[in-house]
């Protein structure tokens, strides 16, 4: 592949046109609205269409509702038995494939993550119904593991044949008495992407688990960390920093989580939201029902980590914490600075593209900025407009048929437990100091003028972008990895980190710098052509020497 062209040669409008030219007219019209050139407009910011149906036949990066619910949100909880009601496949594919690390076993002495449980529905179950089989499987799980909780997940055919998984769950829950059983109607065809699965999971966790802990959680500066999934040990690193600062993390949703941690979330005094897309529903509900405010944080990037810690300290407004956070930052930063100093000469001015998730395409730009790298194009797989443009667009969002199918639960202030952690005056004062509550600015504002923001990027468009803009690095998921690398461009998985990580926090940032240095400066890519391919013509006959 030839050396990257200078950015000035690209007109984003031309690139967009190239991405669309091969599509049938109807597809081109739809995709045109999901490919946005990030440029200032009179009086407004550009609008992007997101969270809309995937086009049949167009090879998408997206997965389904079940993947979002069972795979992402509920998958990491180590002491809840996950039982998938459906034919075998869905349970098999979500079995240990998301790199959720856990040391929760230290608290609960149960780790069910290595187990894959399924009702393995057969054709007779499809015809006659699978409720009996589900009941038997729940009983078997209970007898075998004696867990605190059993979560049931519906796959596509369950919704179609009308098995009432919630009734079965309720019945078994009552029968056991000492084991909470609840169900998720997360059939894969619901919604347009994983995103609806997140919503369904949020609702059920909130309804069935939060507030159930019998024990009072002690500790100072109690927070929840929402939307952190401990891929590659990210959560371990963040928790290390919290402990060092004296911040008590009551509950992470849902990396390295346990049933009791979920159940205790109502005891925190602040919710910190990492991945806005997947968990903002829980953040909102915690505030409405228990009076716990939430702020957006980001622990991807050393500077972002420092900023988020300061924000938390500001919220609690105690000198002890504020000072301690500064001490920790001062202790951690030298190693980070040294690592940057080492890699920066080799990474500066390199370019990247990020197409991943509902927050990572945003968060990881922090790390690339620290590396002196420029993000040419980015987008989310399953985000909504607010994740691109900021939460201020929320009131104007139209609810389409696909979103309407996802249950919205009504939550109101708990008569006994509602306790606003801050008064209106305190909130106003904190906002003046820069602590934004319930605020997420989105991806677009942090992207440079003239960059391309693409929602639900597909294989064809990815190939076009790489071919035309020749980035030094492309970031997406496993399905995209090898087609990009065949083009001679290194590809970093930002879902599963290619077996690497952690990349969060201070130590994670150092890991990431070294990893990106390895990728964009590897000699491997220079071997693609054999000597005889580089110089195919012999200009003269060589004499044997």
């Amino acid at each position, binding site marked *: 592949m030839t050396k990257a062209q200078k950015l000035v040669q690209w007109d984003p409008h031309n690139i967009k046109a190239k991405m669309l030219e091969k599509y049938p007219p109807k597809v081109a019209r739809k995709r045109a609205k999901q490919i946005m050139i990030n440029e200032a407009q009179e009086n407004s910011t550009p609008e992007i269409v997101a969270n809309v149906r995937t*086009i049949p036949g*167009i090879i998408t990066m997206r*997965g*389904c509702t079940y993947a979002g619910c069972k795979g992402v949100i509920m998958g990491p909880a180590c002491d809840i038995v996950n039982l998938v009601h459906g034919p075998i*496949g869905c349970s098999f594919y979500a079995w240990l494939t998301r790199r959720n690390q856990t040391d929760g076993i230290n608290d609960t002495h149960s780790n069910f993550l290595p187990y894959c449980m399924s009702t393995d529905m057969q054709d007779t179950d499809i015809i006659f119904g699978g409720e009996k089989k589900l009941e038997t499987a729940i009983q078997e799980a209970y007898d075998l593991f004696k867990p605190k909780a059993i979560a049931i997940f519906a796959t596509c055919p369950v*919704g179609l044949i009308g098995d009432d998984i919630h009734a079965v769950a309720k019945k078994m829950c009552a029968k056991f008495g000492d084991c909470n059983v609840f169900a998720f109607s997360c059939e894969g*065809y619901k919604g347009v992407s994983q995103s609806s699965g997140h919503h369904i999971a949020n609702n059920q966790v909130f309804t069935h688990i939060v507030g159930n802990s019998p024990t009072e959680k002690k500790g100072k500066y109690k927070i929840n960390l929402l939307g952190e999934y401990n891929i590659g040990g990210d959560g371990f690193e963040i928790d290390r920093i919290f402990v060092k600062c004296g911040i008590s993390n009551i509950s992470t949703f849902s990396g390295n989580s346990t049933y009791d941690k979920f159940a205790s979330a109502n005891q925190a005094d602040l919710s910190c939201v990492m991945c806005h897309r997947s968990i903002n529903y829980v953040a909102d509900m915690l505030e409405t029902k228990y009076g716990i405010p939430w702020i957006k944080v980001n622990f991807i990037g050393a500077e972002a980590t420092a900023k988020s810690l300061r924000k938390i300290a500001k919220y609690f407004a105690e000198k002890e914490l504020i000072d301690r956070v500064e001490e920790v930052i001062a202790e951690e930063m030298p190693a980070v600075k040294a690592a940057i100093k080492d890699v920066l000469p080799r990474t500066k001015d390199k370019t990247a593209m990020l197409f991943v998730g509902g927050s990572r395409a945003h968060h990881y730009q922090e790390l690339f900025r620290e590396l002196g790298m420029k993000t040419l194009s980015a987008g989310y797989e399953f985000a909504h407009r607010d994740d691109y443009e900021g939460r201020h667009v929320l009131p104007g969002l139209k609810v389409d048929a696909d979103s309407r199918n996802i249950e919205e639960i009504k939550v109101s202030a708990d008569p006994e437990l509602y306790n606003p952690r801050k008064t209106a005056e305190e909130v106003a004062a904190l906002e003046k100091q820069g602590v934004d509550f319930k605020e997420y600015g989105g991806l677009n504002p942090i992207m440079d003028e003239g960059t391309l923001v693409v929602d639900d990027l597909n294989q064809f468009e990815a190939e076009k972008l790489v071919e035309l803009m020749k980035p030094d690095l492309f970031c997406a998921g496993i399905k995209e990895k090898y*087609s990009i690398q*065949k083009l001679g461009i290194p590809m970093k998985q930002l879902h599963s980190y290619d077996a690497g990580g952690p990349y969060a926090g201070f130590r994670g940032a150092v890991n990431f710098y070294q990893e990106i240095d390895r990728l964009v400066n590897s000699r491997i890519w220079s071997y693609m052509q054999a000597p005889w391919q580089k110089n195919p013509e012999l200009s003269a006959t060589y004499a044997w020497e």
Partner: protein
Amino acid sequence: MINPAKTCQPIGAMYAALGIKGCLPHSHGAQGCCAYHRSTLTRHYKEPISASSSSFTEGASVFGGQANLLQAINNIFSVYEPDVIAVHTTCLSETIGDDLPQIFNKAIKDQIVPEGKTVFGASTPSYIGSHVTGFSNMVKAMAALAQPSDNKNGTINIIPGWVEPSDMEELKRLAALIGAKIMMFPDTSGVLDAPLTGTYSMFPGGGTPIDKIKDAGSASGTLALGEWCSADAARLLDTKCKVPCSILDMPFGLQATDRFIDALRTIAGSSVPDEISIERGKLVDMMSDMHQYFYGKKVAIAGDPDQLIAMTEFLVSIDMCPVHIVTGTPGKKFEKRIRELTGEMDCEVNVKAKGDLFLLHQWIKNEPVDLLIGNTYCKYIARDEDLPFVRWGFPILDRQGHQHFPTVGYTGGLRLLEKILSVLLDRKDRDDPEEVFELVL
């Protein structure tokens, strides 16, 4: 079911379809199925897996998926330009009862299938059988494209079953050495073992051309490897196109390879070249050289029926004792066949079709073994029980090599023995006390 030793039909159909030249597998269902299958196959092969989906929404699930599939076919031919689209169904489209042939007819009538292009499909409901069944159903759907022919062309159809691209390459090499004119389908070599060159093609050069598959009715016979993977397709060619077939075991290990080579030279009417006899001799040589380390060792194996049958026979042939044998795939014949193969061993054998890895683990706890052979998921058992472990089967998510180095044939047998020996002897070296630790083994 806990810790399955199987997955669902569509992934097998997707893998089989990738063995057709210029073919885009298409999953008719919600998009998560396609995403999961692509992810799993990608992790196994470390190669791009292109496949599309009908991306059902709730509406399509209620009203049927015809509109989605028609739109998909149109988009696929416009954007990706494959020669073939091989559609497989999912539990979703099967439960609502979408009728693929009717939708294909509509596509042709609506002129969204360009001239010279093929769209065909297989019914692969996830709630019947396993990934092996899905593979078999897709291969059978390929065979169904063949028409009866009076012009026999002397070709032998070989249906290799769900083996690695490297295995398919090896089968072609052996056939070429014998001088047999073969047409193998499906053939994922050259598709899922592509080189890194700086260019990417969604359809690399490999795969069986669809025209050759359509001409399978002109062959003089079919060799189907593996009852579970390949027999249905071969029998269909027999009944529909009057192409006689032999169903053989997958040629893993000495005796199954012997039968394959013998059958091939008989149908081809040619003699086996010395080269192959020498390869065979090398395998027998290693079996005898290292026999002391194999003899009497107990083995647990999990995997797919065709592979397990051949592996069991191979293990017995070197005097190992396969004592626990589990597949997740159903099939009464499986247990019977394993009983026959292990009948002369003087130890108890546990065998189960429709079993799972949880059961296998229990068996191992009750009756410990010296070696475990299975897919990557078995490493949790290997770690718990501290067992020497050989990765073999599908999926292998944490090691490399299976896509490049065959385990079929005699040279494949050498590789299997090398792997088994390495883990057994590594273990011996690790565990031997100082006073008996030895240089030469």
